[in-house]
């Protein structure tokens, strides 16, 4: 690693130091203690100072999310309270499987409807056949 004391306006050593200390910079934003080499680098590096300003904005934006609440329907309260009742584990398991149960119900309902339809068609066909026999 190049020395912090290296002279000259080249950007390569600075880049290396910036990368070396980049994770520390992410901690420096909320006052985490820095090792002396990192501290001295940040005091003189414009790039890192610009990044530090970005981190500060980032932290303010993150903190502002604290006031947000996601919209959630109040059935969740009932689910929580049911789960807390004696035997609540049963309620919980029922809820956990409710999605798959509703899919199963739809599937069984579909089969039942199809079976009923097919049976109806058979009855109609047999009646028509009987009428034709009687007519002939």
């Amino acid at each position, binding site marked *: 690693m190049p020395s912090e004391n290296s002279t000259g306006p080249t*950007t390569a050593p600075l880049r290396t130091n910036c990368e070396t200390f*980049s*994770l*520390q910079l*992410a*901690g420096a*934003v909320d006052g*985490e203690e820095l090792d002396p080499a990192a501290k001295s680098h940040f005091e003189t590096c*414009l*790039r890192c100072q*610009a*990044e530090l300003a*970005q*981190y500060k*904005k*980032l*932290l*303010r*934006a*993150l*903190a*502002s*999310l*604290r*006031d*947000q*609440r*996601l*919209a*959630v329907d109040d059935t*969740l*309260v009932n*689910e*929580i*309270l049911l*789960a*807390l009742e004696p035997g*609540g584990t049963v309620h*919980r398991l029922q*809820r*956990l499987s409710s*999605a798959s149960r509703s899919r199963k119900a739809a599937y069984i309902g579909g089969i039942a409807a199809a079976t009923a339809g097919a049976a109806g068609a058979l009855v109609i066909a047999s009646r028509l056949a009987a009428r034709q026999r009687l007519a002939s």
Partner: protein
Amino acid sequence: MDSDRTNELVAAAKEGDHRAFEELVRQTYADTYTLAYRLVGDEEDARDVVQETYLRAHKGLKKFRGDAQLSTWLHRITANCANTFLGRRGRHRHDELSDDFELADDVPDRDPVFQADLGDLRSNLVAALTELPPKLRTVVVLRDIYDLSHDAIATELDISESAAKVRLHRARKRLRESLYPMGEEQAHAV
């Protein structure tokens, strides 16, 4: 919620008053759900985490001494439950937060200029959070949104404090790079 009222409810719930606990649930469930969703990134999974959180809170309420706020205590339990949940879910499926959820601000514009500046950044931030791996997202959400201490985060996630800090720094770095993709070039141009 008023802190005196909360303390009364907690005291009553500790004595076995179910209505008091129910009231606490009603006051806090939206906040708990929001955190759970931010951690696990799925509505149904978040609901399961919330249920588990209140089951554990109910069982452990007598141990709650009131040193911390009730909300902080609940956040820690939620973090622990979500961590267990994510661990179980682990390799079974890819974790992604969807950003199509509805939001409600509990504390509307305290400073309109600040809020306006934050508008775009905040929506981009929510999207950037979805891109983080769950291990990084969990730490940055708990520390930078919910203000949990490094120590608390390490305890609830069952990792060392230094590991929690490294994850936090990596998460912040990724978020910054995502939100300011031109930052590097601009800084070098100075």
